[in-house]
């Protein structure tokens, strides 16, 4: 993840004091920080780094918090024909045993990268934490590209999200009104130093990792931020909505096709 998360909580009369809500907010952001520490591949002492070091040699048991995340990631890999791949081109080498909840790699070239689903997962966990503490109206976002709109803001029935123009960040290109929905935006924009100058790569390319040919911008909305996060990446790669796109989710390609 390695990005900024922000949280806005609506204070209702029926809810605890502002000080207690602030404590809830800090708990939520600590939860996000804990997930970052578990899921980052950039820290050698993270749980994910442990999996990447170990799973080719022996199965790694997954707990009830992580198993659904990996299972859904593999499902999106399958449903997107490999366009979304946490194994960076080696999705077929992931074996997840539903009976033992253990994950293993079929060979030692596999290394997981949860960067395109971890932020959504952390947001889902943040929303769950908020609900556990009685918060029903809030907005939580990470990196301005994924977020969850819980309930409604004080002055309206939905949270209004502006999507800036890719050519002029100060210009709002699209507006979305969301209530009790998650959203994710993926944009195959330029990123110096990334393969082909792009930060999303198509791992289905067989001749090494290559960047997409046509830059795209996609917004996905739906109940789970984990899935909107994963599918927005998949759709940027695919350029179209596949038949296996999940029910209850919506996708919009935003005017960047060329």
């Amino acid at each position, binding site marked *: 993840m390695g990005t900024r998360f922000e949280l806005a909580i609506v204070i209702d009369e029926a809810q*605890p004091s502002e*000080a*207690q809500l*602030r*404590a*809830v907010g*800090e*708990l939520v952001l*600590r939860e996000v*920080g*804990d997930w*970052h*520490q*578990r899921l980052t591949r950039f*820290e*050698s*002492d993270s*749980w994910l*780094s*442990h999996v990447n*070091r*170990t799973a080719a040699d*022996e199965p790694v*048991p997954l*707990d*009830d*918090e992580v198993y659904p995340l990996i299972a859904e990631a593999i499902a999106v890999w399958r449903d997107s024909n490999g366009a979304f791949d946490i194994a960076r081109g080696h999705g077929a080498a992931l074996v997840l045993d539903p009976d033992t*909840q253990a994950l293993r790699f079929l060979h030692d070239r596999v290394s997981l990268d949860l960067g395109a689903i971890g932020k959504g997962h952390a947001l889902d966990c943040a929303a769950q934490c908020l609900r*556990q*503490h009685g918060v029903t109206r809030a907005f939580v976002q990470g990196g301005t590209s994924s977020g969850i709109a819980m309930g409604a803001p004080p002055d309206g029935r939905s949270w209004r999200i502006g999507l800036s123009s890719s050519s002029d960040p100060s210009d709002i290109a699209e507006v979305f009104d969301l209530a009790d929905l998650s959203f994710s935006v993926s944009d195959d924009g330029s990123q110096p130093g990334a393969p082909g100058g792009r930060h999303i790569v198509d791992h289905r390319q067989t001749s090494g990792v290559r960047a997409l040919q046509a830059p795209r911008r996609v917004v996905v909305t739906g109940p789970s931020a984990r899935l909107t996060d994963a599918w927005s990446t998949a759709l940027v790669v695919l350029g179209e909505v596949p038949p296996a796109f999940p029910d209850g989710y919506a996708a919009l390609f935003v005017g960047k096709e060329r």
Partner: protein
Amino acid sequence: MARTPHDRRTFITRTVGALGGLALLPSPSLLLPRLLAQAKSVRVAVIGTGRQGRAILTELQKIPQVEVAALCDRSTARLDNARARAPKAALVQDHRALLEASPDIAAIIVATPTHLHRAIVEDAIAAGRHVFCESPLAATVEDCDAMAAAAASAKTVCHAGFQGRSNPTYRRAQPLVRSELRDLVSWFGQSHRKTTWRFPAGEGETDQAANWRLDPAVSTGLAGEVGAQQMDVAAWCRGSYPSRISGRGGIRLHKDGRTVADTIEVDLTWDDGVSMRYEATLANSHGGAFELVHGINGSIRFAWTHAWLFKEADAPTQGWEVYATRQQVLDQEGIVLIANATQLAEQGQLQAGAGLPHPSLYYALMDFLKSVTEGEPVACSFQDGARSSILGIRANQAVMAG
């Protein structure tokens, strides 16, 4: 102790040397320790399933021979949250019921609020269980002494959770404090975080119980709850404890009626005149948590998953330094103090500039389990843990007295 990932990002700016050459520690087993494959499965219970308890569960998942058989907490909400990390564990709300009902649970890991440790630890020792107790051991000197006495008469393993003593990077650096730095000039430690230190009360829990850290009747304050870990590093490296303590503190940010200081400064002085300045705050996050020791031949910066040695220009060069990995840290080139960097890099287990493969907590738990299953010496005894806990308690008293 909560670590701040910010530390590593802040200080690692550029890797200067390649990972090639002599290793700085003899065995990679220190970095990637495992229990013996033939070791029997150890049934473990974790008592206290808040944030630290859940972190413990994450580390225990990595150890195949460990079976988390039970979780215990007064709060059903915390138990429910923790169950996801130990799905097969029985859930219990009373630790005495747990000890009576599960004689096959060999090891007890205690991660409750500090002031609740003593009763649980004494009961567990009396029931013949191995015990790992989070630091600080207790909130009062009397409780620390009682726990150390109970451990002294125990036939089981009693391990205090002062993680620096198990951390491979710190173990690498500890002898260098005496050999490389020569005479010490000063010691500095800090923990900076911006947080209220408040926690929302769970269902059926009072706000006072949830926020025991802010209750002066039971809290050891920043000096005890956070500082004791860092002060222990200094005492362990020096092989002795300071004899004089002074302190001060106040409320710099969180003016919400609390009386436990959100910002403190503590001065610790040893009999030989060496002193340590310790600062902790909940009002500013700059720099995170680290310790910095200065000697006449150089300085060592400890940052939990990393440590660096900075040599003075007139200090003699040791043979191993020629091949060591170096990094640019705050405009100075430091020698990375990490065990067997070369061999690990060749095995693809360590990137240049990367830190330890596991958090400090993992190494502390692994030391405990090695003592339980293989009879290894205890890395931090209750006697040492009590001394360092009392150091934190006395420092907190000095802060309160001003």
